[in-house]
């Protein structure tokens, strides 16, 4: 492997470590407002990396991953009301999302490309409908309000979300470099050809899918503790879907830093310009999505990265595909 890439990688690792250290000590210096802001950034990063895993790396672009956020949110809220300590409720949020993602994944991963995307979109809506109809469990449309005494402090939430963002990023970084990640990328490139050279595509896809569901599950549970309220619309909101997709595509799909860069830029812009107007924020995300799809498919990261690999002469004389 070229040493330049190795060098970049270790630089990236140092930069990452520095950021994490800075984030860890930040609460000492920042007031609650900025802590809340960073907390939300961490949540978005965690969600984005999870989406990155299944959509960016494996090529199964999901339009409904917020379904797992919602599942985790409800699980977290319920376990909390049932008397579990908050951190265990978060854990259970992740577990519930993971457990349900297994059959759901086996169902939806049989579909290709746009059909998978649409099916996942439907899954999110089904989640919302189930939450609305299952009144005994979820209190239906009225939602569940969480008593403040059950909730962790802002500091604890801050560090939990930081850990989730870090964990998600490390997971993606780790997978990116190892054999599993290579197989996922091969699946993304050409699933049939990957199967032909010995990659067990079904197993790989399902594992990636479950991993990509665990994180939103945990994030959902933490988020519900942050807002202290949940109802079907907030749990299965499209906002999260759009954010996941746009943050990753804008930042750079399939890369480790892309979601982080994307999340940082978008969240900072949002905070500075239009935090008061969520509709404006979403509309602009929509614009960004269109622009990225049309003009910048590789995301921001692709601008920063110059292709240092040699390009041999293409199409030598006498060589044409039959």
């Amino acid at each position, binding site marked *: 492997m070229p040493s330049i890439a190795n060098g970049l990688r270790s630089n990236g690792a140092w930069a990452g470590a520095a950021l994490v250290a800075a984030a860890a000590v930040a609460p000492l210096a920042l007031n609650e407002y900025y802590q809340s802001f960073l907390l939300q950034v961490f949540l978005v990063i965690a969600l984005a990396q999870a989406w990155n895993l299944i959509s960016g790396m494996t090529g199964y672009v999901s339009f409904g991953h917020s379904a797992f956020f919602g599942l985790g949110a409800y699980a977290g809220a319920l376990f909390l009301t049932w008397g579990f300590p908050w951190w265990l409720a978060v854990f259970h949020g992740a577990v519930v999302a993971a457990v349900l993602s297994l059959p759901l994944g086996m169902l939806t991963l049989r579909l290709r490309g746009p059909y998978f995307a649409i099916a996942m979109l439907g899954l999110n809506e089904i989640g919302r409908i189930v939450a609305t109809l299952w009144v005994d469990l979820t209190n239906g449309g009225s939602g569940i309000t969480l008593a403040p005494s059950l909730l962790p402090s802002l500091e604890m939430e801050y560090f939990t979300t930081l850990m989730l963002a870090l964990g998600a990023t490390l997971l993606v970084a780790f997978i990116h470099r190892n054999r599993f990640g290579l197989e996922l990328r091969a699946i993304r490139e050409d699933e049939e050809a990957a199967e032909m050279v010995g990659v067990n595509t079904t197993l790989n896809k399902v594992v990636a899918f479950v991993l990509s569901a665990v994180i939103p599950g945990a994030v959902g549970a933490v988020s519900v503790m942050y807002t202290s309220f949940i109802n079907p619309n907030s749990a299965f909101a499209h906002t999260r879907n759009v954010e996941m997709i746009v943050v990753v595509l804008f930042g750079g799909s399939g890369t480790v830093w892309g979601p982080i860069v994307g999340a940082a830029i978008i969240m900072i812009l949002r905070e500075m310009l239009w935090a008061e107007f969520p509709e404006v924020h979403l509309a602009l995300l929509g614009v960004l999505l269109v622009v990225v799809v049309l003009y910048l498919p590789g995301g921001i990261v692709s601008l920063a990265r110059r292709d240092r*690999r040699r390009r041999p002469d293409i199409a030598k004389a006498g060589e044409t595909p039959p």
Partner: protein
Amino acid sequence: MTTPVCDPDHILCVWGLRRDFGGVQALRGVDLHVARGTITGLIGPNGSGKTTLFQVISGIDRGATGTINFDRENILGWRPSQIYHRGLARTFQLSRVFPELTVLENLVVAGSRKDRSADERAFGLLERVHLREYAAVLGKHLSYGQQKLVEFLRVLMSDPALILLDEPAAGVNPTLRGTLWDMVRHLNGLGTTFLIIEHNMEVIADLCSDVHVLSDGEIIARGDFAAIRNDEQVLEAYFGKGRHEQGAGTP
């Protein structure tokens, strides 16, 4: 009806393979045996079902009935990845190199997970075809001929016992073509069996000890090249009834 037993000298035995595509019979009861250690050719007019046969044997197409026996095991219904790990590999007619993976990654992903020295194996293979400097190049940046070569190398990573090659030289320039056939001969010398779909009769004549002719979903002739080139049925399949003449335009 008892399943016929495959001769231990045959690495691949196919009996009664049928494949229907909603009314179109692509394979009508194909019987085919490939002897171990040979380079066997598979020829036939366009549309005769050659690629379909490969699709079925390699496991991508799971809609066929019949028996496929590879190295003493019945593999009909196996996943393609299972078949690959069992020792049967296959290339495609049009290059299917992974475009966003480097050449090295293209090769390594086709190797065994447990193989610690996968990188060295890959470099060794690239060395053999003078493509070592291209290890870090993305698949999409290779010329078409180089892509086909890399695709060929890819299936060698798992050291298969039988390789199905689907028109491996199509679209490749003469120099690289020569490299390819040299490798086939070399590997065959080391014991690898090949089943090759080709339209170039010179190659078939030169390389293959055994040739099967597939026409309209059935094997209509089998033997060495000299025998089949004068076979009535074969000529008819290629040129139609009554339109052929001895020596003129024969395959």
